[in-house]
């Protein structure tokens, strides 16, 4: 009898599921969402890049030594390890905003792999350039101060 009444009642009962695209699903306030970056506060220590488990953060460097922050939301696992490692309060922070889907035009996999390799190469190039400049300055200081740095276009 109880089962019968239950069955009749079920006709009028609302479904327990949410109509997802039209209604929002449950999301806690401190959801682990996108990683935010505040460039003005960054001290460019690259600690976040060192601790990131999947390698979703990389810094490239131009020939003047200026670094640029790159972040890939498709590689990131949103663990927040970079935020914990960041020594400067507020430079890196985790928002509650879920990552948007990647589009084909973004070329998020192959493009990122290329960017990652290019970034590492650009840092190596800057380090080599810095070393060369230091060496050139040293030789210029020790030998003949009038003689200009010869190996400019290497």
């Amino acid at each position, binding site marked *: 009898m109880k089962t019968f009444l239950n069955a009749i009642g079920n006709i009028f009962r609302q479904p327990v599921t949410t109509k997802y695209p039209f209604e929002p699903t449950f999301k806690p306030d401190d959801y*682990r969402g996108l990683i935010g970056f505040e460039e003005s506060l960054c001290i460019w220590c690259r600690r976040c890049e060192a601790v990131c488990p999947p390698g979703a953060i990389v810094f490239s460097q131009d020939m003047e030594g200026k670094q640029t922050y790159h972040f890939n939301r498709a590689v990131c696992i*949103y663990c927040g390890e970079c935020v*914990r490692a960041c020594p400067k309060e507020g430079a890196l922070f985790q928002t509650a905003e879920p990552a948007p889907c990647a589009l084909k035009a973004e070329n998020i996999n192959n493009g990122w792999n290329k960017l990652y390799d290019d970034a590492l190469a650009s840092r190596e190039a800057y380090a080599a350039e810095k070393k060369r400049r230091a060496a050139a300055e040293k030789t210029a200081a020790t030998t003949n101060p009038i003689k200009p740095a010869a190996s400019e276009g290497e």
Partner: protein
Amino acid sequence: MSKQYEIPIGAQHISLLEPLHFKFTTENEKVVRTDANVYYVHRGIEKACCTKFKFRQVSFVVGRVCGLCSISHTTAYSQVAEKLVKIEIPKRAKYLRMLVIELDRIHSHLLCLSHVAENSGFEALFMKTMQYREFAMELLEAVCGNRIQYDFSIVGGVARDLKPLVANSIIARLKTFMPQLDELVDIYSNNWTLSLKNKGAGVITKETAMRLNVVGPFARSAGLAIDVRNDTEDLLPWKEVGFEMITDTAGDVYARNMVRLRELYVSIRIIQNVINGLPEGELVTETKAFPDGEAVVRLEAPRGELFYYAKGNKTQMLERLKIKAPTFSNIAGMVEAFEGNEYGSVPAIIASYDPCLSCTAR
């Protein structure tokens, strides 16, 4: 001797959740012999942990070994790494780890129960159990910030604190879950169809379970009192928060259901005790040491004993990491318990083992 037929199940099959392959030799619909092949999803995680990732990053990698017992893997690795770098974690971190492990156990056990119901042909109960399971997923999302990959334990402690608001909501949601759990226990134990199908199916005796080294609810349903939470006190203080051993004697699918359901009550009590007695203090013990030496850790995952071995050589990279998932211990017992059963009850028996082959093969 009547004619024998070989019936394969898997590696992809609608009643299987996991990529495993069983070959049943049947005689008049009775299973007489079983062959199992489980290594379909080798991902090379152990090697990656020793070559590509630093030891602090490995806890996030091993969290991806299994979706259901993610926190067990992360915690077990964190503990083994803490042994290698020789630090003691704060008590608050221990309590929070236990909280998340038990919440994880609730959702994992309910998932297993729902699949047993589904594979026994009771789809409505599957949906009901899944509906009641949703609260555990939402609480885990509120505590850890993510539904599946928790990333909660890190080497030295836990990554996030428990907010008072979330703690209150856990207590409140558990209170509403209690009558629902009573209802589930009533259905799983008294439903005529379900008991007809499940009682006496997939029986494993206590002696066989002991001989084949079976672990987890599979062993406890056969009367073998084996639970890591009962044995170890040094890493997580289980007895302090009211752990109690649950065993049954029958060793069939029905007994396994009952053990899982009764363990949910214990999990609920542990969670309530953890929240009520949550000590104040730090979340993480910081250290700059590198792993050195060898260490072994055991932890009770929802499916049984999880085993981690790690070896460090004073560098950032581990020299060796060995994971033994609970299902690996259970495979021999799984194959044994099919014998003499009707072929029709095989899907329900497979689901009642709660196999996690992605864990096992990694």
